[in-house]
């Protein structure tokens, strides 16, 4: 319990320190317009940078989410691996086989390329 509390406070403490340092941002938020223009090497932009951004790798992110959900089963699996022996090993084979299948399919469909 104490250790959890300590780690939480460690994280929180450093956040506070950092916030203090970053306070400069409040002061810097107001500046002259030329100062606040986005740096484009002396160029200009007609619009705001914020936009409906076309992240072309979005099929990859969907594969990632499914993959990651499966991975969450593997943590408890690893803990009992030695105890369960061959059962766990066979299980892992099935698991990795299925995952590889998904990746191979995604690769064939070009989910990891976007240019």
């Amino acid at each position, binding site marked *: 319990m104490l250790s959890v509390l300590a780690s939480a406070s460690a994280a929180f403490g450093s956040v506070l320190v950092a916030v203090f340092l*970053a306070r400069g941002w409040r002061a810097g*938020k107001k500046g002259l317009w030329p100062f606040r223009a986005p740096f484009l090497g002396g160029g200009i932009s007609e619009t705001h940078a914020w936009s409906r951004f076309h992240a072309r790798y979005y099929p990859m992110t969907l594969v990632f989410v499914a993959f990651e959900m499966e991975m969450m089963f593997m943590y408890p699996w690893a803990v009992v691996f030695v105890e369960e022996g061959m059962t766990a090993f066979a299980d892992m084979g099935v698991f990795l086989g299925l995952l590889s299948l998904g990746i191979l399919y995604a690769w064939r469909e070009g989910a*990891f390329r976007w240019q």
Partner: protein
Amino acid sequence: MTAQAEVWAAPLLTAGVLAAGAYVVAVLDAAVAAAVSGAGIGRSVLAGPLRRAALLVVQQPSATERPDAASWALAPALYAGLAAAGLAVIPWSASFSVADVEAGIVLWGTVESLAIVAIFLHGWSANTHQSLLAAYRFLAAGLSYLLLSMFVLIAAAIPAESLQLSRIVESQHGLWNVVRQPLGLPLFAVVALGSSTWGPLNLADGDDLSGGTTADVSGRPRLVWSGARAAMLTSFSAMAATVFLGGWQGPVLPGPAWVVLKTLVVLAALVASGHLFARVRTERFVTVCWLVLLPLAFLDLVIAGVEAL
């Protein structure tokens, strides 16, 4: 140590180690840069980081036309806090660690994924073009390398029969994981470089995008961000030392000294790689990550499984 003292000592220890770590990273970086550039390492490498920090303290913080001010200020803070939270789960000796939680490596995974959020937010919130491009290309890489980390840490958990880091260190008695699971450490190094956006995986803050997420950041916020990156690299090195290099175990010296020594070795290697290897291209890295590194991580898991049976 009494319980009350522990509550106050732990955060101080964590913060102190990270501050020292960030300084060491800056010194190592300057030394390696001087060696690679052929200039020769001078005394200035020791004072250099402090001077540069001082300059950032007196510099005016930048502003943009319409930033997401709260996220912009909080992203570096979150990033620094994550480095601290990550360091907190590292055991320093058989009897002491700040937070030796039961699901240690899962908590570590949370730190990695929140670090992705912090870096993305840092690039997003400025509302400027180059930082936005950097944030998005980082995200593609981040969502790719994260899986590697899960696999190699799970492989390390198999012989330990636990997700707890102290148990993982104990399981390396006699034989370190770096030998037992040789693929683990190099793959984890990729994750370390990615999560600290360092060297060949510096996609978020790359010079080709005028500094990427920091392209429009100056002054103290930039100081916090640079410090947090170095602190993150330190935490990752400590984690690598713990999971793959036997942590506190070693002859003669006390446990914490071994942790520090091994951390420094990993740090030096990671920092050096930053000056010796060119930045990867995002798209190619994503492809390599899924089609080469991920199968290697599978193999790492199989090796760990066969070894444990």
